[in-house]
């Protein structure tokens, strides 16, 4: 199905820009994500007319209006369910879901987890800004405990979700995290997500500079990024720090931060994307950096599993039914097996 002729894509990032004025606040992290998506898509060997972007409601959900592909800006929380129906009936399409932390984890939580367990082959880009932007600044299901917002003047008493732990718990087959401020990493992860056959979930830390500015600062700012983040790669040891001087070791099921002066790289935890249990431990590297000693926050592909997709299994049932019973005969169906004749 590749349309790449002599490695020259059939269309460019420019062809993906629509005539609609982009309406996000200046400085919003969404701009960068849009740019990376538009950059990556032409490199994927897809036909533009077979790409569909579906979103729910929220700032990020405006996204499809800015993509010159097929698209639907739907209703709050339902993009996942709409995309499911589309992909099940049109498996050849490349379906992308754009959603936010409120859209997917709050109002659309149910569809979100069910899509994951069904492993429908779509790419879900979850723009996590830990706030409700479009409705002007209420706390979200990923906002930290104690968060003071318009709807929580005394601080939020809602314990937040750990989105990737939720995804893994919901039987997700591709679990990844990236950020708006690291274009190269984001593009790499997007490519991996697209290559994965099954439901690919990419959580993207996205700065809402109006209502939650700096929520991910420690992970994105140069001064702290190296010490607070852990970029994981399949087959590579878990090493981090400005001088690559720290590593993670796993003792049974207990991870530990160690100094590279004390261990050799071979003794470190070697990241294995296919190891579900260890991926689970990695998703638990989720401590609030403000609260004392903690693990760095991992970015990259946590887990990737090759599992049959819902739509291929269903398609096979349809084919099997035809093999077993023959293509449907409408008149035979209407007649049924017990008929009688009334003579005039």
């Amino acid at each position: 199905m590749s349309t790449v002729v002599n490695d020259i894509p059939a269309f460019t990032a420019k062809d993906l820009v629509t005539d609609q004025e982009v309406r996000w606040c200046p400085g919003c992290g969404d701009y960068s994500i849009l740019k990376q998506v538009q950059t990556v898509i032409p490199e994927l060997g897809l036909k533009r007319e077979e790409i569909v972007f579906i979103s729910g409601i929220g700032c990020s959900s405006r996204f499809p209006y800015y993509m010159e592909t097929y698209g639907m800006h739907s209703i709050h929380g339902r993009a996942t369910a709409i995309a499911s129906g589309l992909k099940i009936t049109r498996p050849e399409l490349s379906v992308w879901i754009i959603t936010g932390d409120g859209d997917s984890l709050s109002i659309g939580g149910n569809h979100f987890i069910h899509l994951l367990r069904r492993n429908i082959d779509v790419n879900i880009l979850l723009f996590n800004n830990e706030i409700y932007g479009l409705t002007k600044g209420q706390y979200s299901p990923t906002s930290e405990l104690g968060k003071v917002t318009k709807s929580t003047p005394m601080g939020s008493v809602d314990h937040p979700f750990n989105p990737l732990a939720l995804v893994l718990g919901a039987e997700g087959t591709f679990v990844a995290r990236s950020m708006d401020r690291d274009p190269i990493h984001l593009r790499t992860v997007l490519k991996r997500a697209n290559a994965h056959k099954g439901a690919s979930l990419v959580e993207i830390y996205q700065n809402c500079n109006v209502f939650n500015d700096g929520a991910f600062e420690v992970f994105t700012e140069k001064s702290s990024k190296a010490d607070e983040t852990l970029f994981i790669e399949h087959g590579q040891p878990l090493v981090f720090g400005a001088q690559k001087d720290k590593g993670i070791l796993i003792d049974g099921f207990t991870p530990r931060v160690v100094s590279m002066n004390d261990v050799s790289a071979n003794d470190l935890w070697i990241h294995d994307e296919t190891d579900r249990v260890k991926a689970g431990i990695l998703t638990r590297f989720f401590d609030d950096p403000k609260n004392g000693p903690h693990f760095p926050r991992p970015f990259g592909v946590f887990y990737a599993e090759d599992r049959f997709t819902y739509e291929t299994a269903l398609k096979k049932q349809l084919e099997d039914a035809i093999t077993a019973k023959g293509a449907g005969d409408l008149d035979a169906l209407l007649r049924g097996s017990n008929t009688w004749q009334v003579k005039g």
Partner: protein
Amino acid sequence: MENTTLHATEATILFAGDSGDGIQLAGDQFTNTTALHGNDLSTFPNFPAEIRAPQGTLAGVSGFQIKFGSTEIYTPGDHCDMLVVMNAAALKANLKQLKAGGIIIANTEGFDPKNLRLAKYPDGVNPIEDGSLDAFRLFKIDVTKMTKATLDGSGLGTKEIDRTKNMFVLGFIYWIYNRSLETTIKFIEQKFGKRPEIVDANVKTLKAGYHYGETSETFMQRVEVKAAQIAPGNYRNINGNPATAYGLIAAAQKSGLPLFLGSYPITPASDILHELSRHKNFGVRTFQAEDEIAAITSAIGAAFGGSLAITTSSGPGIALKTEAIGLAIMLELPLVIINVQRGGPSTGLPTKTEQADLLQAVYGRNGEAPLPVIAAQSPGDCFYAVYEACRIAIEHSTPVFFLSDGYLANGAEPWQYPVSADLKPIKAVFAEALPEGEKFLPYKRDEKLARKWAVPGVKGLEHRIGGLEKEHETGNISYDPDNHEFMVKLRAEKVERIADYIPDQQIDQGPSKGKLLVIGWGSTYGAIKTAVKAALEAGHSVAHAHIRYMNPFPKNLGELMKQYDYVLVPEMNNGQLVRMLRDKYLVPAEGFNKIKGIPFTSTELLEKIKTLA
């Protein structure tokens, strides 16, 4: 004593027992056999709300009523000629249904002290022993004993033997009405094929029941109901839910579109999901979604992709789908929303029938959100009505409501099934690739005001749609005040214009001018038809019109009503169609309402008609 045979033009039997007694199965079997015998018929299964309500109690009584005849039958009968009861609770719950002098067939074991107590008869009172049923003809049979004797030495356990009781009773009823056992034997063989000992037991018991009639001298009179003189043609027996499923498959086949159903199980609509999931060889994709919202939104996704997309539910589920229906109206995509209505509000009466979701279908959304609404009038008509709903959805690019109800869904009638070639064609119009440089306008409309279906995969038609207000033609987001008002009116006009593409309202029977017009919709058809027929025969000036197109109404409806002095609108709700008629046409239509979870009887309708005509 000699057996005598009574000749009757029609008969009504009510089978009743515990929900675990196999009453529905016996009823279904009697229906199929009766249909094949050539009788016209109508059935009314009546389930308890709980799957297994406490045994022997009034709450646990399950009933199945069938009226059949050598003449045309439109209702399952107001009262029955024969009441078959498996226990005391079944008698107590249904005795009022029995005609004076009617026959009671009672399973004596179901009248032991325990069952009498559970049915709340006072201590020491046993209705089948104390003469209190003297006004009826009572026949007592110890079904349990007979069944045990029949299967003595079969090696089956008491529980399994007990389960064949319904077959004994069925066999006995077959004997009374002189019916062949063949269909039921075939059914037993198919159902229990994997367990020959069970097939054997059931067939044996069925035959034992039949022979019991012959030999016991319990029952002196057999009844002969000859085949009906109905319109010549090929018939089968059908229930409303399978007819709906077949209508959907037919519409998909005739339009050349793949069929997609997004559904979440709910009583009494689930059987449509079950039926469709059996026909994957027609390319049908059924998706049991995680909830009602996903059921409809997955269907919207499928519609966007070019499928004939359907969602099925009942009242409470429809309420959950409301926001998504609004989205489908904005997207102007074909979608059929099926509501098999049940008693409401809230969870209401899940297993009982009602017509109380009409206003919900026509008006129940935020914003100005009109859509077409079609209602079926009989089990077999579910096929044609849902087919028409699909046609309108596809050809007018709009979501369409299809209304059925619990009574149609589970009720059965002989159905003169159509030949596929005779079905109205359905034409889906897809947007095609444009010449280079030309801009695609997703909301450009044709003379029906429908927009073209632009399906992903076509080069050059890339476009975005969504729930925000659309700019005329371009479909871009628009907050322009004038555009919004224009679009609201355009969407309303689009639905109104469907009236140009549907048939005029017909008078079902009665004079085209007169004193009284009875207007019904949905499953009240049979009861109204029977009542109006009787009133006409008695010389009253009355006619009957039954509306299928609930929105928009047929164009001549207003004129039609003006031809009569009075308009009476019987409905199984607190007055919904009557409001719409009064609102739109300013006619002093009068409602006649029944909100009991059970259909109208033709007798009560006739009484009412007589007061007005």
